[in-house]
Each structure stands twice: as C-alpha cells, then as structure tokens.
C-alpha cells in the first residue's frame, strides 16, 4: 500500500523527535569533549580551537534543524567564539573565559532540554 504524504510527514516528524533525543545525548558527550579541548587550548595547543569550532558548528546546525533552538543558539555562540583569529593563535585569558562561560551555558541548556 502506498503511504500518503501525510503519513510520511507524520513518520518523519516522529523520527525527528527520536533524532532530537539522540542528539541531546550525543551533545552531552561532545560537551565533555569540548571541555577537554578547551583545557588543552589553555595549555597552548592552538589546534584545539578548530576542533571546538567544528563540533559547535555541527551542533548548532543539527540542533536548529531538529527544532532545538535554544540549544542551537548556545552552540552557535561557541562556534562564534571559536572562530580562528589567526593560524596558530591561542586565545587570550579573557577569550578563554568567554568560551568556558559559553560551554557552561550549553550545559545549562542541555539540563533543561532533558527535563
């Protein structure tokens, strides 16, 4: 039997709700990874900024497409802060503190998304 567009749309919405739950779980793990990257960045490993940027970029895009707008906005702020100022440059203390605050905001948002 052929599915109607309405049936397919309903199935797609249900699948997106599942993907959103999985996305929230995965984002928890990626937040921990970003915190590790930030610690290495603070210790002088400039390459970690690009890693944080890449994770945040994907998180922002996927979150928004899945309708998790506040979470996506937190990720977009991290992505913005992790824009590479110059090749090999390590952000100064104030910029590192801003990134840390942005990760805290993401964690807060993840907690409320899980409620």
């Amino acid at each position, binding site marked *: 039997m*052929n599915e109607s*567009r309405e049936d*397919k749309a309903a199935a*797609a919405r249900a699948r*997106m709700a599942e*993907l959103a739950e999985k996305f929230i779980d995965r984002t928890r793990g990626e937040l921990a990874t970003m915190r590790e990257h930030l610690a290495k960045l603070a210790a002088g490993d400039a390459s970690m900024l690009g890693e944080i940027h890449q994770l945040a970029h994907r998180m922002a895009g*996927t979150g928004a*497409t899945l309708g998790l707008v506040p979470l996506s906005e937190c990720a977009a702020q991290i992505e913005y802060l992790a824009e590479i100022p110059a090749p090999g440059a390590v952000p100064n203390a104030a910029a590192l503190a801003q990134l840390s605050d942005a990760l805290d905001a993401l964690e807060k948002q993840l907690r409320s998304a899980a409620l």
Partner: protein
Amino acid sequence: MNARALKSLLYVDDDADIREIVQMSLTLDGEMTVLLCGEGEGALRKMRDERPDLVVLDVMMPGMDGPAILARMRADAELADIPVIFMTAKADAQEVARFRQLSAIGVIAKPFDPMALTSQVMALWKSHHE
C-alpha cells in the same frame, strides 16, 4: 526551456542526522531517488557511478568541503555538467553571490524546514532550467 524532471539527487553532508532528515524530507512526495554521502571522495565516486541529476552540498565539512567538491566536479569532464546547490548556515548575500560565482545554481539556508525542503529544491531546479 522546460525543466526536465528531477529524478535523482545526491546529498553530501558529514552529519548523519542531517543526511537522514534531508532524505526523509525529499522523499515525502515519493518521486525522487535520494542518494547520500558523508564525505567528498566518496561523493565524487558516487556521482560517477550513479550520475544524479542534481548534487546538493553542505558547505562546511571536515576534509574536502563543499566548494572543494564543486571545484573537483567542474574539473572533471564526467561531472562538470551536474548542477549543484549549496546548503549553508551562512547564506548572506555575499556568500550566495560567491557560491553562484563558483557555478552553484542556488543556495539553501540552514536550518531548513524539513517539510518545505522539496519545494525549495524544486524552485531552484526549475529556475536553473528557465
């Protein structure tokens, strides 16, 4: 010029969730074959093997990004004529102009509305053939 039917499309994105959502969205109307790939080299192979009518590329991907894949396509006689659409979170006028200069037929902004993606793709496809 009449738009020929859009029967097959290859979507390239490193994010598996987005690939799945795009496939669900573009098959809601049941008319299109949607091929998927998560990285550039595999995408180029799939284009040669499957000859999709249209390629939709995410812009920012690790390794070969969307513009780099397009450059490889345009330098390859087998793939040079396949139309390309970019999908990007940075769809401001300047970026859209830059992508069009690279020969993209259009740009779709991310995040997209999954229920409206087919009509966005079809509008760009039709305007390309006008």
